[in-house]
């Protein structure tokens, strides 16, 4: 059984790129895509993915708050945070919110 991944990013093209990469990897599959934090939290409850790949800076609910809410769910997914630069403020914020790792 492959790992189901929820992609969260406000840039549609980022979702496309990540989607292609994950779709091309044998033991990974895209469970869903979300454009902001609210949608991400909703899809975590609905789709119960194994892993969430989360952008931090998004309009509406940002990635840190979405991570906090997603990891507060029963049987929470692992959250990997996407950052362009390892901005300390975001790194610590996301780790405190329950993120498991970073993809710079």
């Amino acid at each position, binding site marked *: 059984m492959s790992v189901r991944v929820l992609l969260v990013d406000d*840039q549609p*093209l*980022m979702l*496309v*790129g*990540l*989607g*292609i*990469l994950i*779709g*091309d990897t044998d033991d990974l599959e895209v469970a869903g895509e979300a454009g902001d934090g609210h949608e991400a939290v909703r899809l975590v409850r609905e789709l119960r993915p194994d892993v969430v790949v989360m952008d931090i*800076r998004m*309009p509406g609910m*940002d990635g840190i708050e979405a991570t906090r809410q997603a990891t507060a769910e029963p049987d929470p997914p692992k959250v990997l945070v996407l950052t*362009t*630069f390892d901005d300390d403020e975001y790194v610590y914020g996301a780790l405190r919110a329950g993120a498991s790792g970073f993809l710079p």
Partner: protein
Amino acid sequence: MNLGTGHDPPRRPADVTSSQAFGPGAYPAYIPGATRGADAAEYALCMEQLLQRLSASKRVTWLMSQAVVLATACLYALMLPVTTPRPANGLFQFPDLERFQLTGLCVVLALPVLLVRRLPATVFAAVLGESVLGDVFGARPLAVFILLVALSGNLAARRPKAAAVGSVAGVAAAFVNDLGVPGESVGDAAQWAGWLAVWFAVAWVFGGVYRKRREYLEALDEQTAARVVMAERLRIARELHDSVAHSIGIITVLSGAAARVVQTKPEQTQQALTGIESTSRETLLELQRMLGALRRAEPDDAMQQAAPLAPAGSLADVPQLAERTAGAGVRVHVTWRGERRPLPPEIELSAFRIIQESVTNVVRHSRARTCRVAVGYEPTGVRIEVVDDGDDGLGGPGRPRFAAGAGGSGFGLLGMRERVTLLSGQFSAGQRPEGGFRVTASLPA
């Protein structure tokens, strides 16, 4: 004691126009960044207002000190006859003077005081000469010594060493002259000189305290200016991060994905490549806009918007600028040194803008009728100097002659400094000791 005359001449109100081009509305920025950008803009605005208030209060200070100088001169002229011992007191050998002669003499003796702001040391020496003359003629008005002490304090606020030397000279002269007064013993003379020395010392300390305070305020001003520039840089960095870095991240992921599936899934490969294309294009536009904003000297530069391809200005435009400025009432003498050669457009534009801004400042903020622009081509770059002599006569800087001059670019001293720093050059601007204002910039090319 009149320490008020030691006030620094007011500096030109520094145009702290942190360029509005990077204001929060300039880019449809990312939301988290945008709110922080707005904070920074607000902060810069506060600083701007603060600096304006400072420069306004400086003008008030300047007027006050002018008034103090005038009052001191008048008081001195009035006190001279009052504090001069009468012939009946025994030590007076001065011939009797008519009333108007005495008045004229007092006025003449008080005249040098008016120059105290410009030539503190000379005026001190002149009044010291007056005191010696008074002793030689046997008239020893107390007013001259009081004034001398005050002037030494004023001098100490600017040139402590000169003030110390002057004070010693004053005490020595008083001692020697007192020996010559009939009926005064060496002890009396020493006592008199000692008292004077104490007063000179007190004045020197006061002058020193005032000088320290002024230096501290200047350092504070510089720090404030540096903070404004820093805020501006942080904002630029954030804009770059928000727009460009993010886009490059997307391009990286898309190209990685395309490379991965190029053999197996042509449709997805095409989708990724199209994404790369559109993202790159947007990023390029964003970069152009940002660099344009960075280079643009004037936030609402109509010329830039109307004809972005037209050359924005170069050193070849300086003679025209000089002609235009002559029309605004300030003659500009331009001198060229070194072998003229074309420089990179950035350097040409910046050099021209700095000259334009400096000349405009002369028109706006000084009463000078002439200013000198020197452009020196050196093997390592170009050096610019713009100098004016300040007010040609009475009056002083800070009085605008024209509300709008010959079309300044409006980015002010801070903007010039930042522009030069971005080009790894050196910049200085400040009041000249001999009066007037000087702006210099060296740009490597």
